[in-house]
Protein backbone atom coordinates (compact mmCIF):
# COMPACT_ATOMS: atom_id res chain seq x y z
CA UNK A 1 0.00 0.00 0.00
CA UNK A 2 1.14 3.45 -0.80
CA UNK A 3 2.32 4.95 2.51
CA UNK A 4 1.81 8.50 1.32
CA UNK A 5 -1.83 7.91 0.51
CA UNK A 6 -2.32 6.19 3.85
CA UNK A 7 -0.80 9.12 5.69
CA UNK A 8 -2.98 11.58 3.82
CA UNK A 9 -6.00 9.43 4.55
CA UNK A 10 -5.20 9.39 8.26
CA UNK A 11 -4.69 13.15 8.31
CA UNK A 12 -8.13 13.63 6.83
CA UNK A 13 -10.04 11.60 9.34
CA UNK A 14 -10.81 14.35 11.81
CA UNK A 15 -13.31 12.09 13.51
CA UNK A 16 -10.59 10.11 15.20
CA UNK A 17 -8.33 12.95 16.16
CA UNK A 18 -7.28 13.19 19.79
CA UNK A 19 -9.00 16.45 20.59
CA UNK A 20 -8.39 18.55 23.61
CA UNK A 21 -11.38 17.93 25.81
CA UNK A 22 -11.12 17.64 29.55
CA UNK A 23 -13.75 16.29 31.94
CA UNK A 24 -13.92 18.69 34.87
CA UNK A 25 -17.13 17.73 36.59
CA UNK A 26 -19.79 15.03 36.56
CA UNK A 27 -23.35 15.47 37.76
CA UNK A 28 -24.79 12.13 38.75
CA UNK A 29 -28.31 11.25 39.75
CA UNK A 30 -28.41 7.86 41.42
CA UNK A 31 -31.40 5.56 41.60
CA UNK A 32 -32.15 2.53 43.71
CA UNK A 33 -34.60 1.01 46.11
CA UNK A 34 -33.68 3.41 48.90
CA UNK A 35 -33.04 7.14 49.08
CA UNK A 36 -29.61 7.65 47.53
CA UNK A 37 -28.98 10.92 49.36
CA UNK A 38 -29.74 9.25 52.71
CA UNK A 39 -26.76 6.94 52.36
CA UNK A 40 -23.17 8.00 52.71
CA UNK A 41 -22.05 5.11 50.49
CA UNK A 42 -22.02 6.85 47.09
CA UNK A 43 -20.24 9.86 48.51
CA UNK A 44 -17.58 7.62 50.08
CA UNK A 45 -17.10 5.52 46.95
CA UNK A 46 -16.66 8.58 44.73
CA UNK A 47 -14.34 10.32 47.15
CA UNK A 48 -12.09 7.28 47.32
CA UNK A 49 -11.07 7.83 43.67
CA UNK A 50 -7.75 9.68 43.56
CA UNK A 51 -8.93 11.71 40.55
CA UNK A 52 -11.86 13.11 42.54
CA UNK A 53 -11.31 16.48 44.11
CA UNK A 54 -14.62 16.84 45.94
CA UNK A 55 -18.19 15.63 45.95
CA UNK A 56 -20.95 18.14 46.58
CA UNK A 57 -24.48 16.95 47.18
CA UNK A 58 -27.19 19.14 45.71
CA UNK A 59 -30.23 18.36 47.84
CA UNK A 60 -32.58 20.36 45.64
CA UNK A 61 -31.92 18.24 42.58
CA UNK A 62 -30.77 15.03 44.35
CA UNK A 63 -27.55 15.21 42.40
CA UNK A 64 -24.02 14.19 43.32
CA UNK A 65 -21.74 16.81 41.81
CA UNK A 66 -18.29 15.29 41.38
CA UNK A 67 -15.45 17.75 40.88
CA UNK A 68 -12.45 16.15 39.22
CA UNK A 69 -8.81 17.07 39.49
CA UNK A 70 -7.05 18.79 36.61
CA UNK A 71 -5.67 16.55 33.85
CA UNK A 72 -7.51 13.53 35.20
CA UNK A 73 -8.02 10.50 32.99
CA UNK A 74 -11.29 9.39 34.53
CA UNK A 75 -13.77 7.71 32.23
CA UNK A 76 -17.51 7.90 32.92
CA UNK A 77 -17.48 4.13 33.42
CA UNK A 78 -15.23 4.42 36.49
CA UNK A 79 -17.71 6.82 38.09
CA UNK A 80 -20.61 4.56 37.20
CA UNK A 81 -18.87 1.55 38.74
CA UNK A 82 -18.41 3.46 42.00
CA UNK A 83 -22.11 4.27 42.18
CA UNK A 84 -22.93 0.60 41.56
CA UNK A 85 -20.43 -0.51 44.18
CA UNK A 86 -22.36 1.63 46.66
CA UNK A 87 -25.48 -0.37 45.83
CA UNK A 88 -27.16 2.10 43.48
CA UNK A 89 -27.57 2.71 39.76
CA UNK A 90 -26.88 5.75 37.61
CA UNK A 91 -30.15 7.39 36.59
CA UNK A 92 -28.39 10.13 34.66
CA UNK A 93 -24.86 11.41 34.18
CA UNK A 94 -24.06 14.80 32.75
CA UNK A 95 -20.41 15.64 32.36
CA UNK A 96 -18.81 19.03 32.05
CA UNK A 97 -16.08 19.11 29.44
CA UNK A 98 -13.91 21.95 28.35
CA UNK A 99 -13.30 21.95 24.61
CA UNK A 100 -10.85 23.96 22.58
CA UNK A 101 -12.49 24.87 19.29
CA UNK A 102 -13.77 21.43 18.47
CA UNK A 103 -16.06 21.24 15.46
CA UNK A 104 -18.71 18.68 16.17
CA UNK A 105 -21.50 17.37 14.04
CA UNK A 106 -23.91 14.47 14.04
CA UNK A 107 -22.09 11.14 14.55
CA UNK A 108 -18.80 12.99 15.12
CA UNK A 109 -16.44 10.79 17.10
CA UNK A 110 -13.27 11.55 18.99
CA UNK A 111 -10.88 9.50 21.05
CA UNK A 112 -9.70 10.44 24.48
CA UNK A 113 -7.63 8.61 27.08
CA UNK A 114 -8.65 5.16 25.95
CA UNK A 115 -12.30 5.85 25.29
CA UNK A 116 -14.25 7.57 22.57
CA UNK A 117 -17.18 9.91 22.39
CA UNK A 118 -19.78 9.90 19.67
CA UNK A 119 -22.07 12.90 19.34
CA UNK A 120 -25.67 11.96 18.65
CA UNK A 121 -28.57 14.17 17.58
CA UNK A 122 -26.07 16.97 17.24
CA UNK A 123 -26.18 19.86 14.79
CA UNK A 124 -22.85 21.02 13.36
CA UNK A 125 -21.25 23.57 15.67
CA UNK A 126 -17.99 24.57 17.25
CA UNK A 127 -17.56 23.78 20.91
CA UNK A 128 -15.30 26.10 22.78
CA UNK A 129 -15.01 26.31 26.54
CA UNK A 130 -17.14 24.45 29.08
CA UNK A 131 -20.01 22.40 27.76
CA UNK A 132 -22.32 19.90 29.37
CA UNK A 133 -22.92 16.62 27.63
CA UNK A 134 -25.32 13.91 28.69
CA UNK A 135 -24.32 10.28 28.34
CA UNK A 136 -27.03 8.29 26.59
CA UNK A 137 -25.65 4.76 26.92
CA UNK A 138 -27.05 1.79 28.80
CA UNK A 139 -26.27 2.03 32.49
CA UNK A 140 -26.06 5.83 32.30
CA UNK A 141 -29.79 6.36 31.88
CA UNK A 142 -32.73 4.59 33.49
CA UNK A 143 -33.80 1.29 31.94
CA UNK A 144 -37.02 2.91 30.79
CA UNK A 145 -35.13 5.69 29.05
CA UNK A 146 -32.71 3.22 27.49
CA UNK A 147 -35.60 1.30 25.93
CA UNK A 148 -36.77 4.50 24.23
CA UNK A 149 -33.25 5.49 23.21
CA UNK A 150 -32.45 2.13 21.66
CA UNK A 151 -35.20 2.94 19.16
CA UNK A 152 -34.56 6.64 18.63
CA UNK A 153 -30.78 6.21 18.40
CA UNK A 154 -30.83 3.01 16.33
CA UNK A 155 -29.46 4.91 13.31
CA UNK A 156 -26.10 5.16 15.09
CA UNK A 157 -24.46 1.76 14.56
CA UNK A 158 -22.04 2.18 17.48
CA UNK A 159 -24.96 2.86 19.82
CA UNK A 160 -26.50 -0.49 19.06
CA UNK A 161 -23.11 -2.24 19.28
CA UNK A 162 -22.91 -1.04 22.87
CA UNK A 163 -19.12 -1.10 23.22
CA UNK A 164 -18.48 0.05 26.77
CA UNK A 165 -15.63 2.35 25.69
CA UNK A 166 -17.84 4.24 23.23
CA UNK A 167 -19.85 6.93 24.93
CA UNK A 168 -22.75 8.44 23.04
CA UNK A 169 -23.32 11.97 24.13
CA UNK A 170 -25.70 14.79 23.48
CA UNK A 171 -24.72 18.39 24.02
CA UNK A 172 -26.98 20.00 26.59
CA UNK A 173 -28.40 23.40 25.81
CA UNK A 174 -27.14 25.73 28.53
Amino acid at each position, binding site marked *: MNLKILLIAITFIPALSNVNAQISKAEIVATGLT*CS*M*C*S*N*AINKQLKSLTEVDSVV*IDLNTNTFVVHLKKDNKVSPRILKERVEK*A*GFFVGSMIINMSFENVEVSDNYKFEKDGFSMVFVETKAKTLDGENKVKIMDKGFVTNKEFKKLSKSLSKYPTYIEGNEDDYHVKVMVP
Partner: protein
Amino acid sequence: MSSPFLIVGQLKTGDTIPDFILTDHLGESIHIPSFKGKILLIDFWASWCAPCRRANKKLVGLHRDYGSANFEIVGISVDKDQTKWLKAIAKDQIEYTRLIDPHGFEAKSAIQFGVEALPASYLFDPTGKLIAINPTEQEIKQQLNHFKK
Protein backbone atom coordinates in the same frame (compact mmCIF):
# COMPACT_ATOMS: atom_id res chain seq x y z
CA MET B 1 -20.91 -6.50 48.07
CA SER B 2 -21.69 -3.44 50.11
CA SER B 3 -25.28 -2.62 50.80
CA PRO B 4 -26.95 0.71 51.50
CA PHE B 5 -28.99 -1.03 54.20
CA LEU B 6 -25.95 -2.02 56.19
CA ILE B 7 -24.98 0.25 59.04
CA VAL B 8 -21.39 -0.25 60.02
CA GLY B 9 -21.59 1.42 63.39
CA GLN B 10 -18.53 2.47 65.25
CA LEU B 11 -20.68 2.12 68.35
CA LYS B 12 -21.41 -1.46 69.34
CA THR B 13 -24.04 -2.72 71.71
CA GLY B 14 -22.67 -2.53 75.24
CA ASP B 15 -20.73 0.67 74.50
CA THR B 16 -21.24 3.73 76.68
CA ILE B 17 -23.03 6.76 75.27
CA PRO B 18 -20.55 9.21 73.69
CA ASP B 19 -19.95 12.44 75.56
CA PHE B 20 -20.81 15.51 73.49
CA ILE B 21 -22.72 18.76 73.56
CA LEU B 22 -25.07 20.00 70.83
CA THR B 23 -27.39 22.96 70.45
CA ASP B 24 -31.16 22.57 70.57
CA HIS B 25 -33.88 24.44 68.66
CA LEU B 26 -33.87 27.22 71.26
CA GLY B 27 -30.12 27.66 71.07
CA GLU B 28 -29.46 25.93 74.41
CA SER B 29 -26.45 23.65 74.82
CA ILE B 30 -27.45 20.11 75.67
CA HIS B 31 -25.00 17.67 77.24
CA ILE B 32 -25.89 14.20 75.97
CA PRO B 33 -24.84 12.15 79.03
CA SER B 34 -27.26 14.28 81.10
CA PHE B 35 -30.00 11.91 79.91
CA LYS B 36 -28.53 9.04 81.94
CA GLY B 37 -31.13 7.53 84.24
CA LYS B 38 -33.65 7.30 81.41
CA ILE B 39 -34.03 4.97 78.49
CA LEU B 40 -32.82 7.10 75.63
CA LEU B 41 -33.39 6.85 71.90
CA ILE B 42 -31.04 8.94 69.77
CA ASP B 43 -32.28 9.41 66.21
CA PHE B 44 -30.13 10.87 63.43
CA TRP B 45 -32.12 12.42 60.62
CA ALA B 46 -32.33 15.31 58.11
CA SER B 47 -35.20 17.35 56.71
CA TRP B 48 -34.44 16.28 53.12
CA CYS B 49 -34.47 12.55 54.00
CA ALA B 50 -37.92 11.21 53.16
CA PRO B 51 -37.61 7.96 55.15
CA CYS B 52 -36.52 10.05 58.16
CA ARG B 53 -39.62 12.19 57.93
CA ARG B 54 -41.80 9.09 57.87
CA ALA B 55 -39.91 7.77 60.91
CA ASN B 56 -40.42 11.11 62.70
CA LYS B 57 -44.16 10.55 62.63
CA LYS B 58 -43.73 7.23 64.43
CA LEU B 59 -41.32 8.74 66.96
CA VAL B 60 -43.73 11.58 67.70
CA GLY B 61 -46.42 8.99 68.46
CA LEU B 62 -44.06 6.94 70.58
CA HIS B 63 -43.00 9.99 72.55
CA ARG B 64 -46.61 11.05 73.06
CA ASP B 65 -47.55 7.58 74.33
CA TYR B 66 -44.43 6.71 76.30
CA GLY B 67 -42.45 9.90 76.93
CA SER B 68 -42.00 10.18 80.66
CA ALA B 69 -39.44 10.53 83.40
CA ASN B 70 -38.09 7.17 82.26
CA PHE B 71 -37.90 7.64 78.49
CA GLU B 72 -36.63 10.36 76.19
CA ILE B 73 -36.07 10.71 72.46
CA VAL B 74 -33.29 12.94 71.16
CA GLY B 75 -33.48 13.78 67.47
CA ILE B 76 -30.18 14.93 66.00
CA SER B 77 -30.57 16.59 62.63
CA VAL B 78 -27.53 16.79 60.34
CA ASP B 79 -29.20 19.46 58.18
CA LYS B 80 -26.73 22.04 56.97
CA ASP B 81 -29.58 24.51 56.54
CA GLN B 82 -30.96 25.41 59.96
CA THR B 83 -34.07 27.05 58.51
CA LYS B 84 -35.11 23.83 56.80
CA TRP B 85 -34.54 21.95 60.05
CA LEU B 86 -36.72 24.36 62.06
CA LYS B 87 -39.46 24.14 59.43
CA ALA B 88 -39.32 20.33 59.50
CA ILE B 89 -39.55 20.07 63.29
CA ALA B 90 -42.54 22.39 63.24
CA LYS B 91 -44.23 20.47 60.43
CA ASP B 92 -43.58 17.06 62.00
CA GLN B 93 -44.71 18.47 65.38
CA ILE B 94 -41.67 17.13 67.19
CA GLU B 95 -41.77 17.83 70.91
CA TYR B 96 -38.94 15.61 72.09
CA THR B 97 -35.37 16.96 72.35
CA ARG B 98 -34.39 18.65 69.07
CA LEU B 99 -30.66 19.00 68.42
CA ILE B 100 -28.65 19.93 65.38
CA ASP B 101 -25.17 19.04 64.18
CA PRO B 102 -25.25 20.89 60.85
CA HIS B 103 -22.60 19.06 58.84
CA GLY B 104 -24.32 16.23 56.96
CA PHE B 105 -22.51 12.90 57.16
CA GLU B 106 -19.39 14.79 58.24
CA ALA B 107 -21.10 15.82 61.50
CA LYS B 108 -18.87 14.86 64.42
CA SER B 109 -21.67 13.16 66.30
CA ALA B 110 -22.66 11.13 63.22
CA ILE B 111 -19.06 9.99 62.78
CA GLN B 112 -18.79 9.09 66.47
CA PHE B 113 -21.88 6.92 66.22
CA GLY B 114 -20.85 5.55 62.83
CA VAL B 115 -23.91 6.77 60.94
CA GLU B 116 -23.70 5.57 57.33
CA ALA B 117 -27.33 6.01 56.30
CA LEU B 118 -30.28 8.03 57.49
CA PRO B 119 -32.33 7.56 59.54
CA ALA B 120 -30.17 5.84 62.15
CA SER B 121 -31.27 5.30 65.72
CA TYR B 122 -29.56 4.12 68.87
CA LEU B 123 -31.26 2.89 72.03
CA PHE B 124 -29.49 3.29 75.37
CA ASP B 125 -30.45 1.83 78.75
CA PRO B 126 -30.68 4.02 81.87
CA THR B 127 -27.00 3.41 82.67
CA GLY B 128 -26.03 4.83 79.25
CA LYS B 129 -25.15 1.50 77.61
CA LEU B 130 -26.13 0.96 73.99
CA ILE B 131 -28.71 -1.82 73.79
CA ALA B 132 -29.83 -1.65 70.14
CA ILE B 133 -29.06 -0.02 66.79
CA ASN B 134 -32.05 0.81 64.59
CA PRO B 135 -34.55 -0.88 66.92
CA THR B 136 -38.07 -1.43 65.66
CA GLU B 137 -40.94 0.29 67.43
CA GLN B 138 -41.81 -3.05 69.01
CA GLU B 139 -38.27 -3.55 70.32
CA ILE B 140 -38.34 -0.10 71.90
CA LYS B 141 -41.66 -0.86 73.57
CA GLN B 142 -40.29 -4.16 74.86
CA GLN B 143 -37.34 -2.38 76.42
CA LEU B 144 -39.62 0.22 77.98
CA ASN B 145 -41.70 -2.53 79.55
CA HIS B 146 -38.57 -4.32 80.67
CA PHE B 147 -37.27 -1.31 82.56
CA LYS B 148 -40.64 -0.29 83.96
CA LYS B 149 -40.51 -0.27 87.70
